[in-house]
């Protein structure tokens, strides 16, 4: 059934007479060489001098809600600094760039931020691959960089752990790293066991670098708490049909599955699970962090949980949480405003990071990282800041995770790692903080179809 009339390319379809082949190749070659030389001559040595302006470069995937929330939160933080006491009498500028979830996109952006825009601080990066992709560039330039999205522990162990002096200008003020998150998740499972009597857990981490530590540590951590791991599988990020996994989890007799999903949304697992399978869905689900996820999933997310810094902005965590959320909502929530209607976890962390740096700069008395980097690093590691998401302090050079945010614990010893659950209401559903107990806005609910 091949069509015979469409098998030719018009000879005049592609320009043969406008630019000669040799001319074109010559020009292209010259251009390439010139560009290469320009790149060599430029380097990434940055600025760093005190030009009277504190320029903050913000990196986030602003094509997605998480990045938009972070960008808006950065703007709020900068506006608050401008309206308040400022930072060392500096003008404050904010530059936001879209990382497009691509390392190849982000690297030249960072180089431009350092070389052209003379940023004094970089905040952001959502996923670990991008964070690690720009580590060397940022380290070479010495510009302070505060990670506010990615949580992979290797970002610290593989860099600061190998050469602290080189990477000392790179920090993370939140979220807590994945090593601590695994411990917190085990503590949360213990809480579920205490509340519902659940003892058998299934693990379903997607096949991605960020879930590696959960795969490695969580089974042992659960067994240390006398909880059973009855199922442990790693689905590909390409998985679109979760029925076989759900069937096997049910057959294994799990009370709950702890899944770790970031890619693609994975809302389809919920569609098959909700109302059908007799176990709870817990863990980390990036799509479910969106305040709009109830509508996006048509209510299919009911009873599922996810961890997220800031607890979705639904309850007070630190004394500063809801003030920030209300500011965000007053500026960005309402008719005609694009989602997200709350900052989301990266927004909380970005907001806190900028305020944290402002406090550190005041402490150090300088933002001139070219001359005073050690003073800035010392200040970063010495201060405490009560942010919107958590009370932040950073680990020192000799710690297991230098320059990384220290986890905090509640009065009853639970790691401050908020878990939110979508719970039904009379007219739909809403997120509630269900863990740690001290911060609960509601108690965890067992799915209504579980016996």
């Amino acid at each position: 059934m091949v069509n015979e009339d469409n098998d030719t390319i018009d000879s005049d379809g592609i320009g043969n007479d406008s630019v000669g082949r040799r001319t074109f190749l010559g020009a292209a070659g010259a251009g390439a060489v010139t560009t290469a030389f320009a790149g060599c001559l430029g380097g990434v040595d940055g600025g760093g001098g005190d030009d009277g302006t504190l320029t903050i470069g913000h990196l986030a995937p602003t094509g997605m809600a998480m990045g938009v929330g972070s960008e808006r939160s950065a703007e709020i933080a900068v506006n608050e600094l401008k309206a308040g006491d400022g930072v060392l009498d500096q003008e404050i500028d904010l530059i936001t760039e879209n990382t497009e979830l691509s390392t190849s996109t982000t690297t030249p952006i960072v180089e431009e931020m350092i070389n052209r825009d003379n940023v004094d601080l970089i905040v952001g990066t959502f996923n670990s691959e991008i964070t690690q992709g720009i580590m060397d560039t940022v380290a070479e330039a010495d510009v302070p960089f505060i990670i506010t999205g990615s949580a992979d522990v290797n970002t610290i162990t593989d860099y600061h752990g190998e050469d602290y002096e080189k990477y000392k200008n790179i920090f993370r003020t939140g979220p807590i790293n994945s090593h601590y998150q695994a411990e917190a998740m085990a503590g949360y499972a213990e809480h579920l066991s205490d509340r519902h009597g659940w003892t058998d857990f299934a693990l379903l981490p997607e096949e991605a670098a960020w879930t590696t530590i959960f795969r490695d540590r969580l089974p042992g951590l659960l067994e240390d708490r006398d909880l059973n791991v009855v199922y442990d599988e790693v689905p590909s990020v390409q998985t679109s049909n979760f029925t076989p996994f759900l069937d096997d989890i049910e057959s294994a007799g799990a009370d709950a599955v702890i899944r770790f999903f970031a890619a693609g949304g994975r809302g389809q697992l919920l569609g098959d699970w909700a109302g059908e399978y007799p176990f709870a869905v817990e863990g980390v689900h990036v799509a479910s962090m969106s305040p709009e996820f109830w509508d996006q999933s048509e209510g299919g997310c009911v009873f599922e949980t996810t961890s997220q810094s800031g607890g979705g902005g639904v309850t007070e965590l630190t004394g500063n949480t809801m003030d920030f959320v209300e500011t965000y909502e007053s500026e960005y929530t309402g008719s005609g405003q694009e989602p997200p209607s709350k900052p989301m976890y990266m927004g909380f962390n970005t907001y806190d990071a900028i305020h944290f740096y402002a406090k550190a700069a005041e402490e150090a008395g300088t933002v001139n990282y070219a001359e005073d980097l050690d003073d800035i690093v010392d200040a970063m590691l010495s201060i405490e800041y009560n942010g919107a998401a958590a009370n932040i302090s950073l680990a020192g050079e000799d710690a297991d995770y230098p320059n990384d945010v220290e986890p905090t614990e509640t009065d009853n010893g639970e790691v401050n790692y908020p878990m939110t659950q979508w719970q039904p209401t009379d007219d739909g559903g809403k997120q509630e903080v269900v863990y740690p107990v001290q911060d609960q806005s509601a108690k965890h609910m067992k799915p209504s179809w579980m016996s």
Partner: protein
Amino acid sequence: MLESILSVLILGAMMSAIYALVAIGFTMIFGVGGVLNLAHGGLIMIGAYAFLVATSSSVVGAIAVPTVLGLVIATLVTAVASYVLYGGLVRYIEDNVVITFLSTVMVALLLTELIHHEFGSSPRTLLPIADGTLHLQGVGTRINYMYILGFVVSWIAIGLLWYYVSRTDEGRSILAVSMSERGAQLTGVDLESVKSRTWLIAGALAGLAGVFLGTLQTTSPEMWLNPLAIAFIIVVIGGIGSIKGSVVAAYLIGYLEQFTLEFLGTGYQGIFSLVVLVAVLLLKPEGLFGREFAHE
């Protein structure tokens, strides 16, 4: 073991039926017009989002319609979009394979950007037309009613299409053009009309596929890529331009994927399809049912 085999047989049949919907329109357009319509995945995406807009109270609440009506609306909208794509663009450039190829890619990318702008990048969940699952306790699995509905709708669509192209004059003219444009023209067939109808039908099938894929998997601005890849694989294996080949290849791929998912894990899900694709290209490059019609 027996449970797993039964599970593969049942779930494979369900998924394959939807793959057939994805691939048939793609192969029809190539068969009739010789056009590799790389916007076919985009049309599938239009079907999913048209259903979302029509049925979800969270998008345009005032006009949320019942899901069955939403399926009809999505099918019609996608059919019209496909018709417009042909009449407004492809018909003017279809003689140039490269330009057509590139233009349809551009259309797909443009659709992605438009969807991204209007609905954001977050994946959406479509309301199921048939909610719940059928619990097959003997097999140890559940089948989403949407899979069952998709299976039924797919075979109804295939049956109607078969009846149309083999039992009606209009349908037979499509078949004639696919065999030989010149020959069909000599017998008085209106070429433009046949091509327009083909794009309309292909669009309708893409719309149906979009609703089922969007409901059972993910509705997002990137959802068109995977169906397009599947359509490519199926159509090449089945024989480019062969409806029968597309149906057979859809079931081959569907069962292969389900088998690997059940017995080897998700990491291998797509590998066997590609192995079969390479084998077919090497051993039988015209596909399993290529050249099933006379050609001068």
